[in-house]
């Protein structure tokens, strides 16, 4: 029986703090009969089908004719907006004020749902202040255009609209678009030239071509719509650098270089070597794991009496560390999935020194190599452990196990039945995770799903709610971190988190999942059947050797899914 999907939603919000069943479980058929409703009447546990859709191998997947889903325009996320304003005007804009970005799975993409009324107001006020600041240095803004002489101001304005407009809209302006901006300029010019230019900036920053990745494309022989060079440039730029295209990329778009997959690859190869790409790879992992939630002091909490160190400084340090870690892997290390998953180093700066303990001694590069095997890759960083669970619960092992299933194996774990009832034993705090969660294993219905999660979570018991390594749990019991991971090629028992991570890092399932996650990150949608070839090619790259992330992303940007869209 296929189990329903909703627990993933629930747990993705991090708010179901583990479930201890004693009633009917997650896959039973429920009979509308009062006499049975408390006794688990008629559960019919089967093997829950949690595996993600299978992607055929590259040869099969890429043999048919090409199809591409239509997709949706993405509205710039708050970070992208701020980066684009920085690149356009050389200003620092705060992202504060915007509503939270909508997500595709774990990633901020703004691909779904309309903008809200208040955000349109925020756009207006941010555009107004950015424009005001920009005309404070009018000469620079105009690129040195000389306004002296008769008609000099209008000439410079025309030039400014053409150049600035193209960069703001990330597309050459049509005659109508130029005329519209000119009209705004003329309105402002009635007061002064500077006000005219200010209004142009203010208007352009609120135009849909700036706020959205507008993608139209041109009809293609295959019934697809081929994105033009500028549209491809925006996709490349936001994916690989988190911001609008630079001059080089605009030139490539203008010269038709981005009309071919080879041309795209040439530019993308340069871009993935930039620190901005590293920044985006960091963002990918921070959002994938949910470490961005640390910034929200009501969404992620710890007992203030037990963990008084969990303050704003600690929250920031944890997110920063993940950035440093990913940057190191990308720039100094191999840039591979395997190293991200299993590197034996941490960055114990600031308040993290206390979390990582005296054994973690940082070298000149801020990196501390942990020789005893207690730290292994992303999953054992303090921040990862601290955000799972998000809220205090004695049953964090369930959340941590679920996080691995959902984020790193792309499994969809079904929700528990609605009438599940559970009662924490009075001495829950004193019990080991295994004792506490044993009830899951005693009930076949519960076991069907929980055996997949709990036994992974046990491996993380050595990490306390701040991610500090411990040998005894909160109840003073010696920790048993043995567990089992099933449903992957290298399945089996493990003695601790390190051994579990090794199994994960080596498993093809994890590499396949990373291709799905990168697809979501890049397109703001789930891969569909039509995307099988794109995914299969990425998977091939990710399964090669250590799984080079740059190679995988380069394969992605050359795909049909990246360069085309479906018909309207």
């Amino acid at each position, binding site marked *: 029986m296929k189990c329903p999907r909703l627990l993933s939603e629930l747990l993705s919000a991090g708010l179901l703090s583990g479930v201890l069943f004693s009633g009917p479980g997650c896959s039973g058929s429920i009979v509308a009969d009062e006499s049975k409703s408390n006794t688990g009447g008629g559960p019919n546990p089967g093997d829950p089908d949690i595996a993600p859709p299978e992607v055929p191998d590259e040869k099969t997947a890429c043999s048919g004719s090409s199809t591409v889903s239509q997709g949706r325009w993405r509205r710039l996320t708050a970070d992208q907006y701020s980066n684009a304003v920085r690149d356009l005007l050389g200003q620092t804009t705060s992202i504060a004020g915007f509503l939270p970005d909508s997500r595709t799975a774990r990633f901020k993409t703004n691909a779904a749902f*309309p903008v809200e009324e208040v955000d349109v107001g925020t756009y207006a006020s941010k555009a107004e202040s950015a424009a005001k600041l920009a005309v404070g240095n009018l000469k620079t803004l105009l690129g040195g255009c000389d306004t002296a002489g008769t008609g000099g101001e209008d000439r410079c304005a025309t030039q400014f609209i053409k150049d600035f407009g193209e960069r703001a809209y990330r597309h050459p302006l049509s005659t109508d678009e130029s005329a519209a901006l000119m009209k705004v300029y003329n309105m402002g010019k009635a007061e002064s030239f500077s006000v005219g230019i200010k209004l142009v900036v203010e208007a352009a920053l609120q135009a849909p071509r700036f706020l959205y990745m507008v993608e139209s494309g041109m009809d293609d022989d295959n019934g697809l719509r081929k994105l033009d060079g500028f549209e491809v440039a925006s996709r490349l730029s936001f994916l690989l650098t988190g911001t609008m295209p630079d001059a080089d990329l605009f030139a490539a778009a203008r010269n038709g270089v981005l009309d071919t997959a080879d041309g795209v690859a040439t530019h993308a190869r340069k871009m993935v070597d930039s620190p901005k790409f590293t920044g985006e790879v960091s963002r990918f992992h921070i959002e994938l794991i949910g470490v961005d939630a640390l910034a929200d002091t009501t969404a992620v*909490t710890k007992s203030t009496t037990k963990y008084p160190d969990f303050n704003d400084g600690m929250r920031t340090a944890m997110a920063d560390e993940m950035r440093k870690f990913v940057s190191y892997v990308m720039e100094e290390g191999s840039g591979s999935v395997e190293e991200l998953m299993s590197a034996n180093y941490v960055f114990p700066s600031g308040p993290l020194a206390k979390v990582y303990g005296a054994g973690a001694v940082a070298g000149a590069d801020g990196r501390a190599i942990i020789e005893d095997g207690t730290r292994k890759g992303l999953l054992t960083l303090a921040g990862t452990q601290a955000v799972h669970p998000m809220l205090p619960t004695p049953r964090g092992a369930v959340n941590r196990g679920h996080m691995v299933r959902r984020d790193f194996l792309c499994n969809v774990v079904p929700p528990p039945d609605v009438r599940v009832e559970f009662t924490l034993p009075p001495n829950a705090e004193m019990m080991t995770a295994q004792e506490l969660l044993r009830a899951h294993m005693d009930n076949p219905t519960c076991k069907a799903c929980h055996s997949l999660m709990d036994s992974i979570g046990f491996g993380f018991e050595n990490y306390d709610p701040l991610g500090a390594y411990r040998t005894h749990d909160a109840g003073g019991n010696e920790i048993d971190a043995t567990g089992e991971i099933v449903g992957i090629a290298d399945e089996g028992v493990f003695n601790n988190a390190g051994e579990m991570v090794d199994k994960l890092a080596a498993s093809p399932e994890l590499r396949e999942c990373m291709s799905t996650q990168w697809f979501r990150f890049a397109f703001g949608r789930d891969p569909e059947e039509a995307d099988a070839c794109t995914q299969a090619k990425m998977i091939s790259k990710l399964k090669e050797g250590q799984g080079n992330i740059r190679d995988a992303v380069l394969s992605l940007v050359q795909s049909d899914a990246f360069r085309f869209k479906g018909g309207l």
Partner: protein
Amino acid sequence: MSFSSISRRKLLAAIAAGGGVSRLAPFLPRAVHAASVPKRILTVFSPMGYLEPSFWPTGTGTNYTLGETMTALQPWKSKLLYLDGLAMYGAQWFFSNPDNEHASGGNMVFTGSKMNPLAGGPSIEQAVADFQYAQAKTAFRSLALGVNSGTPSQHTAIFYSKAQTPVTAQTNAQTTFNQLFANFTGPTAPPSTGTGGSGGTLPKPPVDTSASDRLQRQKQSVVDLVKDELARVRKLAGTEDRERMDAHLEGINSLENRIKLLAMNTPPINSVPTTPSAPSGPIATPGSAGAGCAKPNLTGSGLTGSIHSQMDLITAAFACDMTRHISLQLGICDGGIDAIDGVGQHDTTHAYGDTKAAPPHVENHKRYDRWYADRWAYLLGKMDAIKEGNGTLLDNTLIVFGSDTTTNHSAFGLGPHNHIRFPLWMAGGGNFAFKTGQAIQLPHSATDPGSPALVARWVTHQRLLTSIGQAFGMNIDTFGSNDPGKGPVTQLTRV
């Protein structure tokens, strides 16, 4: 207090800086006549409902006693309205289905519409907003606020602007404060008493009509460009993107309205313009903000403080008539509000079963319910402290409290949570909506735990949503995409 000296330029400078009407309100306090007092709606979501029977009042009609966990509301007993015996029919709380009762309940409670994949219709405050905003345009059509409310997904979406389109709640009170009050020069409310202010003393700069007219024309030209560009890209958009461009256009229309609202307030303020050139439909009569309009003082921190800050903002936004429609979402379906250290809300409410419930769990559940009652008391206290017309802000605001489920295992032998005897209850609005200060016992089956025949034996919650729409003057007989019945709750008394 004189208003004749406020320059429009100053007003426009305020919008220019804040994109809002931040300085509008203090210029407008004037006698509020009962007839001109706005009708407002506030919908409040909190997860998990309450533990029965300690939530429900005993007694009937006006002669009722508050439930033991709700005693914090005693000072406002005459302004509360309970309907004991509602059922949320159609949300999945009984049948085996691909969802659980939390999300389906959360999606349905204010929309009356089933979740597939998201709710199939707008929530009540948004429907009222559509209706009222078309007649009178306030600075903001509506506000959506939250605490730990997440970003929209099946399990987090409660309030909807229309079918399949959840609103995204702003969880940062400071942000909303900036949008509404950053450049506000009026009085600041005291942090804890909620008595509001008495109008500010304002500087008296000279009026410069030509400059303010020019600024308004400039703002309008920017708005016009954005509208033109939206229309242009709309032609290139697929179906879903077209809808998103349309929603963006609505946001721009609202911004345009704010610009016009300010421009209309040419001093002296008492001369209300007769021919407002609104973008579409008339503009709200300015001057409806009462003397209670004051900048909120957001001092709270932590979970409780965040909630109180949102409540302070709501009170101020209503008092200054910046909007008449607000939703407040605390948590998400099934949790998100772990208020009591060491006692998880989710675990607590799921641990409750009749004979199985260990006393500590019953007591913990009650602790949660009392904690909520304290929050509601804070809100009611703030709103009731602001005098308005011949009553208070609370009397002119209908607050509708709802949840995704309730905890009534003992009553019906179902699981810990379900949707019968559903706690969709109200406060305020006594000046225009329903007669308050009552506990109304609706007829319902005492034994039927729910069945397809339930419609006949229970009053479905869509009846109440219909009543609410009618109280605002909407000509409706049903509410939501899955309304199994027709008409209002007949036991309710309209005022």
